[in-house]
Each structure stands twice: as C-alpha cells, then as structure tokens.
C-alpha cells in the first residue's frame, strides 16, 4: 500500500480501510497475527488481509462481510483521528487546483493540524515534490511525523515544530505554494512571501471568519501580492431514492387501458436542509515586482 501509489495486494504494515457499508468505515494497521473486531465479527489479519487484493470482500467470524479498501488521502480524511478541526475534500480540491499543485511542486503549510490536507498535498506533489509543514503544538507535530512514517510518505515531507508567525517555514525562496490555516494569518504573510520563490508563487489562506479574511487581504496588499480572490465552496450531498406517487382516478377512462395505482420514479434529495460553512479561502499570487 502506498498513499502515493496504488498496489494490488495487502502487505503487513499497510494501512487499510475497512468498509462496512452505508458510508461506515474505519482504518486498520495490518499486522501479522493481529485481529480486528467489527459488528460482523472478527477479521484475522493474517488469514483475511495479508496477501489479499485490495477491494476484496472479507467474511468475518459471525458471517457478515466487509470490504477492504486501498487507502487514499480522501478516505484518510474521512477516517483519520481528529486532533484538530480538519479540512475536508471539498475545500482540499479547490485549494489543490487554485494553488496549481502538481508533481514536483514545493509546498509550505501551516498548521499541520491532523494532517488531512498534508496527505492530499503529498499525494499530489509526489514523486518529485516536497511538503514543508509547520505545527506549533509539539505533540501534534510529533503525531503527524509518526503518521507520515507509518504511511511511508515521510520522504516527501518535513515537519517543523515552530511558530510560523515568528519563525516562518524554515525555508526561503523555494516554495511554489504556501497554505495557511492559522488563527492570525496576516502575521505570517511576510514569512510566506519569503518562503515563496523569487519568480513568484501562489498563496492560500483559510479562515472561518470574514474579519480574519479582511485583515489577511490587507496584509496581502501591503506585501505586494496580486490577484487576491476570496471564495467559499459548499458541498451538498444527495440521497437517491425511489418515490411513489398515487395516480388519481379521474373517473370513466377515455383510454382503453386504464392506468391506476401508483407510479414509481427515482429522486435525488438533499441529505441536509442547510449547507454547512467551513471557511473562506483567500488566494493570491506573489508578484515579481
């Protein structure tokens, strides 16, 4: 398994995603001799997982079954242990595209948080790029480093435990893109500018509150950033179901074949009435001059 490259068969040490159905799933660390409890019974790693292809169905001890999936950053985002509020794939998608990330990109990020975005960035910039991620909370920085190692992506990421607002990203003039998800991003704009390449680069700042956005935009203008844009992306999920409507009885049929009873059709209904706000995304470009 690799978060940056697909493999066919499950090996010891892999992270695999156990899918129970109806969007219910959880991650496991595959280990020889280990066992995992599910509501359908026990999964024995050596017998059921190791050597099996990802995507297989596994029958558990009680007779019920689950699927074992290859991890992806998107599945990881849905299943990772939260140490902080995380970014979900909807925001991650637009960030990735608007920062123009691709293989070979050098990216600086702060704060690392729970590593949701970090995994997505590493996946996109591999095998020739790199992520420099800064986290001021010592334990979170350590946990992130551990996870990157467990997921075998540590060669593409450097974790620094420091305060980005005071000490920057630890690199200068190397980044194609900088991402900020911190309470006071305006304090880090100067450091972001320094981390970005001389020839220019892209920046993104994520803030839940519009007041933070205003202060950040001001700081961006003061530091000579151009193409400043703020947007918000909202996700609405639909549930696909069958609906029935009764057909009215209009009396004596004009048709030779009277149509009565019910008619069935498929509908897509929103899962939730209101759509949640995550945060505002402010993008900008470092100007040459």
């Amino acid at each position, binding site marked *: 398994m690799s978060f*940056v*490259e*697909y493999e*066919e068969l499950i090996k010891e040490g892999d992270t695999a995603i156990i*899918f129970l*159905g*109806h969007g219910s799933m959880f991650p496991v660390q595959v280990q020889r001799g280990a066992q995992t409890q599910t509501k359908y019974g026990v999964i024995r790693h050596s017998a059921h997982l190791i050597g099996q*292809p*990802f*995507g297989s*169905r596994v029958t558990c001890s009680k007779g019920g*079954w689950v*699927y*074992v*999936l290859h991890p*992806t*950053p*998107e599945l990881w985002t849905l299943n990772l242990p939260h140490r902080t509020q995380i970014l979900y*794939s909807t925001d991650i*998608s637009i960030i*990735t*595209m*608007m920062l*123009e990330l*691709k*293989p*070979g990109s050098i990216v600086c990020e702060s704060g690392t948080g729970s590593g949701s975005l970090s995994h997505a960035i590493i*996946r*996109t910039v*591999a*095998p*020739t790029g*790199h992520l*420099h991620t800064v986290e001021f909370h010592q334990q979170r920085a350590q946990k992130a480093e551990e996870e990157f190692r467990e997921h075998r992506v540590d*060669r*593409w990421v*450097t974790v620094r435990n420091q305060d980005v607002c005071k000490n920057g990203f630890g*690199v200068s003039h*190397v980044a194609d893109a900088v991402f900020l998800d911190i309470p006071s991003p305006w304090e880090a704009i100067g450091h972001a500018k320094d981390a970005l390449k001389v*020839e*220019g680069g892209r920046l993104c700042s994520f803030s839940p509150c519009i007041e933070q*956005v205003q202060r950040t935009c001001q700081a961006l203008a003061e530091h000579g950033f151009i193409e400043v*844009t*703020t*947007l*918000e*992306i*909202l*996700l*609405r*999920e*639909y549930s*696909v179901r069958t609906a029935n409507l009764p057909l009215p009885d209009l009396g004596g049929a004009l048709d030779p074949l009277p149509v009565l009873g019910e008619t069935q059709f*498929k509908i*897509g209904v929103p899962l939730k009435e209101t759509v949640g706000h995550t945060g*505002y995304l402010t993008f900008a*470009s470092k*100007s*040459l*001059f």
Partner: protein
Amino acid sequence: MEGAKGEGPAGDGAMENSVEHPRQQDHLIRDGDFVVLKREDVFKAVQVQRRKKVTFEKQWFFLDNVIGHSYGTTFEVSSGGNLQPKKMMEEITSETKEAGIDNRNIVDDGKSQKLTQDDIKALKDKGIKGEEIVQQLIENSTTFRDKTEFAQDKYIKKKKKKYEAIITVVKPSTRILSIMYYAREPGKINYMRYDTLAQMLTLGNIHAGNKMIVMETCAGLVLGAVMERMGGFGSIIQMYPGGGPVRAATTCFGFPKSFFNSLYEFPLGKVNCLLNGTFSSKALPPESKDSISVEENNGTLLDDLQTSPKEMEESIVEVIENNHPQQETMEVISQEPEYKEHKERGNKKDYIQELQRKQEQQKKRQIEAATLLNERNADGLIIASRYHPTPLALSLLEFVAPSRPFVVYCHYKEPLVECYTKLRERGGVINLRLSETWLRNYQNYFQPGIHLLSSITTTFGEQGTGKY
C-alpha cells in the same frame, strides 16, 4: 530530505520547444511557448510566435517582446503593436484622499467631466499613457472630490479598465484554463465549472503513476487537467467518440513532448468488441472515412477560421466535435507541422506516404491501448461528456481494478440519478455519492450547484447485495 526536486519524467529535463533547458529557467517565456494573456479577468490562450499578429481585448500586437521575460510580467501595447514591459504601479488614488460622506448633493447632469471626447482622443494620439489619462480625468471631474471613498475606487477602476491596457503573460495551468473556458466557451466543456473539475481531480485521486481512463468531450480540458496532475508519470487512455479525440485545450497547457508518450486513445465504437473479446485492429471503425478529414482539420491553422460555436446545452443534439473548427478565442497551432509542409510543397506522393505512415502508427497505438485496457486494472475513470453517462459508466468500469475511485460528471442531475441507480443494480461499486458544489465568489455572486457522481470499485459479490 528537504527540497529535493528530482528529475522530471523525461529524465533529462528536456522541454518541448527548445534545447535542454535547466529547470531554473522554467519561469522565462520562450519562443514557441504556449501562454495565456490576461487582462483583468479576461484570458486568452495563444502560442508565442515571432511576427505573428495577436488580437486580444480589442487590441492587436506582436508577442516578440515577451520572449526572455518572466511569466507574470505585465506589458502595455505601444506604437507599432509592440509590447513594452510595465512595472505594476501603486493604485492611483486621489492626491488629497479627500472624499465625501454620501451622494445626496451629487447631481448626475452629465456635465461633471470637463474633458471632452476630443480632448481625450487628443491625449491618446499624443501617446499619453493610460494611467496619465485616468489621472487627468480625475483632476477634471468636478464631482470626484465629493464622491465617497468607495465611489472613488469604483470610478478609478472603471476608467482604468477603459484606458489602461495592461496585459499580463501567465503560464497556463488547469486553474487558468478551466476558468477561461468556463467564462468564454462553457458550451464546449459541457458547462463544467472549474470547482467541479477540481473536485473530480481530487475525488478521482488523480496522481503521478496512475493508469487512467478518461472519457471526455470537453475539448481536451479534462484530459489536460489529468495530465497536469500526473506530471508525465503513468499512463492515460482517452476514449473518444467519432473519428478522433479532440485535444484543442490540451495543447494550451504546453506540456513537454514526453508527456504524450504515455497518452493513448481508443475509439468508443470498439469498446463492445473489446469487452466481448472480438476486438481486431484489422476491422477499422466505420468512421475511418472521416479520419482523413480529421487529420486535415488538425493540420490547419485553426485561428484563421471564423466560426460560431454550436450551443451544447441540449445534450440531445448530436455534435461531432472534431469536425467543427475551434472558435477564435483559442489560437491553436497544428500538432503535425509536417503535414502542412508537405502540402505546401505540393508533393502529393510524400503527403500520401506520410499519411499512411501515420495511419500505421495509429493502428499500432490502438493495439497498445487495447492491450492496456484488457488488463482490466486501470487505477481510475473520469467521465465528463455530452453523452448520457450510464452506458459509459457501465461499460468503462469493466476496465477498472477493484478498490479504485471513479467520477462521473454530467451537466444535468437527472442522468446522474439514473446512473447511480444502474450502478447500484450492477453491483461492484461502493460509497456511491451524488454531490453538488456551490461556489461563492466574494465581491461577486453566488454560483449554483454543479453535480457530480463519485464512487469506489470493489470486487464482485452476488448482484445487488445491498452494500453500497
């Protein structure tokens, strides 16, 4: 390991249009580069060619002077159609920063500007720069001082837009090209908004090393986006309807030649025989009669053709996209310059030979593509076309390995509801999600929902056994 950039897929960093170029020079504009011209929020994709007239935003000019400058440099059009680099100046603000509180005393009598049309024309003829003209307009406006700060900013912005012609040359990217296409020719990309494309690339886990199947009729924009995210690593099989794949937008990305070595194409018309084991390269598709005309189309300088785009909002209209020359908003140069040369030289025999060689090559590539598909182990599938998605999804999924994500885009929601239902019936897919994204641009407007269907493949169990 810090900051290791490593080598690109070509191994020696060779780029398409020049001799070996060190990566540090990636940020400089070179002759032959595919670039995007930007003025405010308007974009146009062009190729840099010396002494070639380019029109953009009611102006015409030559791009010669941009060569050697960095991407991101701004230029102004000066006499003779030459571009001059221009440093980005600070925002023009009124000298005294004097502003009013509100507009209760401002009367709109059309007499507040003291400069006449002739005066302004005289300034322009004298060669006075745009920002000078704007400054003059401000000074000669009797009401400017009384406007509120917001109104002053709005006034300045409006005048700048009219009189200052600042053009920036930017490097093409998925971001820029998808925004450009959505603004200028949404019909060509099935009204796929750029945030939706962003979702597809991420939910589809598009990354270096994948073996991707792409089925799109978005002028090659989706293909280009996939190629950008794969960085030349891995392989792509593009499925196409009709005579050949359309890659007009793909060209705009300016990818190095090496990226195309692992790009294959396969006709939709042969999918069923591939699936039931009767594929043969000998039996050419009925569209082969069109293949010559398609080659000819690809071999023409498309910017010389003035046509109007066909409206694509009704997907019931059958449009064979590659037979419609591109609209003038994208200036695309032929990918096969040898054709034109032979034709121009009037050497018909050479031309026929060349054509035959190309067809042999095409046949060989098609067999390679069929082999790759037959392995049934693709890492992902993206569908974004004008066709009803259900038959495409049901057939193309056969080529995808288990535990891989796939994404289906459709301009309308209802076909996706049907596709979802049919996929559930088929089985072998889980975590089916029908979603819609809304984009809100600040200072602009709310852009309503665009739908997407995403899912993950599995190995097959009994048909329709509930887990989804």
